[in-house]
Structures are given as C-alpha cells and as structure tokens.
C-alpha cells in the first residue's frame, strides 16, 4: 500500500469540527500532493491545531472527511497512525527514561522491526549518541527537540506533522532542526503549523492561511506574492479569536 504512487498526500473535504454554535473548523477543503511541504498560518484560535489534530486522528471531524495517504482519518485511523509522525513543541518524551529507553519504548508501540539498530541509527542522526544513557530530564530544550524528532521518525512515517517545532529553540538548535528537515525533506510530506511567517515561507511548497476555521488563502509557493501574502496574513490576525 505504501509503495503505490499516491496522487494526493492529503485530501480534505468540507471538514467541519463544531461544538454547538462554535466552529473550530468550518468547511475546510484542500488537497496536497505527495512530498509537498505545507505551512499552515493563522492567528490564535483560527483552528490550526484542531486541523492537525483531526489529520492525526486525535479528534474526529463533526462532518466532512479527510484522507491522509488515501486513508480515512476515522475509518482507517489505526492503519494511518502507523504512517504518520508528529513533532510538537512539546517533546512528548518521558523525562524519567533515558534517551535510548524512550526510543525503545516508542518502537515497541509502533512495532518497529530491528528496534535496536533503528534506535542507534537515529540517535546518531540527531547527534545524541553520546547522551543515549542519560535521562531526558537532564536534556536541554534543543536536545529534547532533536530526540523528539528521532522519536517521530522511528517508524519511518510518510507524513510528518510539525506543530510549531521552532518555538522555544535557541538559534543553534534551530540550525540543527533545519538541517534534519532538509535531510529528509524530499522523502516525506510535511505539514507544519507556524507562527513564524519567514520560516514557514522559506520551507514550504504550499501555504495555507486559516482564520475562524476557514481557509483564507491556499496557494502553491510559486504562486505566492510575498508582499500580498504578508498583507493577507496581517489582516487575519486582526480578526482575533473566532
């Protein structure tokens, strides 16, 4: 299934997520080709996090549907979870386990073949080989984020979701994160939530602006006029919380 060429990585149709009259997502539809890099912008409360939560099966849509890699987020949730990864601003790691134990634990969860080899390989890739026996409690923010990336890549996901991965990182850690993303950039589809317009535009192949649960703008990078884009973004920020 994973080897077939996919025509779309994401396929979102009329996605609505509502509770009473409040709508976190209101009829969102878009498609994203494979190996693209989607940056999602929008003011606080625009529905960015909700969108990513629906796309990562953590929340069910109220109506409409979404497919990731051709799999439905509700019906094929378990299958889908094996093929997506999340890097959040929260490290999602147990502070009282060592780096290696953390990765080994999550490889059990994902049933990763040759877990030992895969963990060693990833620890080397994120340059944490020398700290593998230390508790992650003792790690700096940057190291945690690197380990968090290793955790997200354990099961070789095809779609990687990034939830404001740069927030709280020092410039050095940012460089390392940039390097890591660049390395795997072309074999994966990325979906990133970002507050940082420059960074988001620099990385993306597609950009999406969300406000009050609706798509304000969705364009491939080539079609975007930077100045106009910034203007649109700024106008949505003024709209405040939906």
């Amino acid at each position, binding site marked *: 299934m994973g080897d077939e060429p996919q025509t779309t990585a994401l396929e979102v149709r009329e996605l609505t997520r509502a509770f009473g009259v409040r709508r976190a997502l209101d009829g969102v539809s878009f498609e994203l080709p494979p190996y693209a890099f989607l940056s999602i912008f929008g003011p606080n409360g625009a529905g960015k996090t909700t969108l990513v939560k629906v796309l990562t099966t953590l929340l069910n849509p109220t109506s409409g549907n979404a497919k990731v890699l051709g799999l439905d987020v509700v019906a094929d949730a378990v299958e889908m979870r094996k093929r997506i990864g999340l890097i959040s601003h929260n490290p999602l790691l147990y502070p009282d386990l060592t780096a290696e134990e953390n990765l080994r634990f999550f490889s059990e969860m994902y*049933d990763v073949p040759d877990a030992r080899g895969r963990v060693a390989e990833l620890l080397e890739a994120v340059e944490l080989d020398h700290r593998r026996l230390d508790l992650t409690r003792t790690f700096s923010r940057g190291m945690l984020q690197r380990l968090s990336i290793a955790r997200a890549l354990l099961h070789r996901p095809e779609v990687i979701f990034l939830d404001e991965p740069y927030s709280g990182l020092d410039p050095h850690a940012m460089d390392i994160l940039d390097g890591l993303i660049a390395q795997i950039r072309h074999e994966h589809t990325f979906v990133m939530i970002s507050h940082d317009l420059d960074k988001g535009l620099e990385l993306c192949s597609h950009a999406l602006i969300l406000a009050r649960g609706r798509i304000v703008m969705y364009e491939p990078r080539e079609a975007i006029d930077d100045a106009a884009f910034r203007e649109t973004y700024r106008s949505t920020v003024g709209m405040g919380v939906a």
Partner: protein
Amino acid sequence: MASASMRQFKAMLRKDVVMELRTKEMLMSMGLYSLLTMVVYFVALSQAGAGFDPRDIAAGLLWLAFIFTSMLGLNRSLVHEKDQGCLEALLLSPVDRPVIYFAKVTGNLLFLLIVEALTIPVFAFLFLQGETIDLRTMALIPLVLVAGSIGIAGVGTLLATMSVNTSGKDFVLAMLFIPLIYPLLLGAVMATGAAIVGTPEALGVFWTGMAWVIGYDVIMLLASYGLYEFIVGA
C-alpha cells in the same frame, strides 16, 4: 493483533515500573503518607478507654489509609503521562485505547498492592500487638486486598485521567472518587473486618463482603473500560 497488543501492554507496564524504580516517587510518597496516617490514627485513638478493642475498627482504619494513599498515587501516575504530552504520543501510536487503560490500571494496581502489603504489618505492629489474631482467617486478607485494589485502580485510573486535566486536580479526584468507591469500601471493610475477627460466623460475612467487592469490580471495570476511550481522547 492480540500479540501486538500484548507486547504494547508489556512495554507500557515495563516503562511505568522502570520509571517508578528510578524515581520511587509514587511508592515513597504513598508509603510515607500511609505512615503519617498511622500517627494520626494513634492521636485519634489516644483517648479511647481501656475496654477498647482495636480489632473492631482495624479494617476501617486500614481501608481509610488505602483510599487516601491511593488517591495520591493515582494523581501522580497520570501527571507523569500528562507532563510532556506523552499521553498524546501514545494516542498517536497505533495502540488500542483499552490497552493503554489496562496498562495504566495494572501499573497502579501493582504499586497500590506493594504499599498495602507494607502498611498492614506496620499497622499490626503499632495497633494490634497483644491482641489474639487467628492467622488462618487472616490469611484471607490478601484476597480482599487484591479484589478491592482492582476496583480502586480501575475506577481511580479513569477518574484520574479526567482530574489531571482539571484545575484543582487533587480536590476534584477526591470529590469524584470517594462517593463512587463507597460500595466497594463498605464491602471491603466488611470482609476485612470479618477476617480479623476470625470467628466461624464471621466467615459468612467475609464471603458476602467479597461478593460485593467482586461484583463492584466487574460492573465498574466494564463501565470504566467502555468510557475510557472517550475520555482519553478528549
């Protein structure tokens, strides 16, 4: 699929045990807390007259200590998962939600039983010295302990999963947990009391109490298991 779930269950349980052995946070806090309750009990009973038989209320005192220490532990165990969003990471992985529930319940049950096993001798040493005790009926106490702790861990894990996401975690947990656990507590105290008294008639009371505890376990564990999926994803 079943074997994969089993492996995931074992991994989660091992993770909890390794973390606990490393920090000893739950065991230490629960153990010391139960020791502190003993001091409070001594003060509470200090004015009781000479005719007072501590065996009459031993069962109630023991379960009181267990209930309060268990709430402490339950909160801790779920705070671990919540702290850095680890629960979210678990939910993102292809694990069935019930596996998460049962792994957490088993972990909590394990720590609870360890603390209870340590508390009972200390309690007996402090309060029951010189009392005649029938060791044959006392041997039944582990049965109540296991059955009661299953209920506490089962219901408590579900409630703690909710209460960690609230403001004022400890109070909310107590407010939900104590009324809900009341039937189990009554049955468990009844059975434990009967085992301590140890007369032949008491044995009938013991099994009635046990039947209640087991019945409660079955009903409430099924309900909690059914509801956990909705709670954990919220």
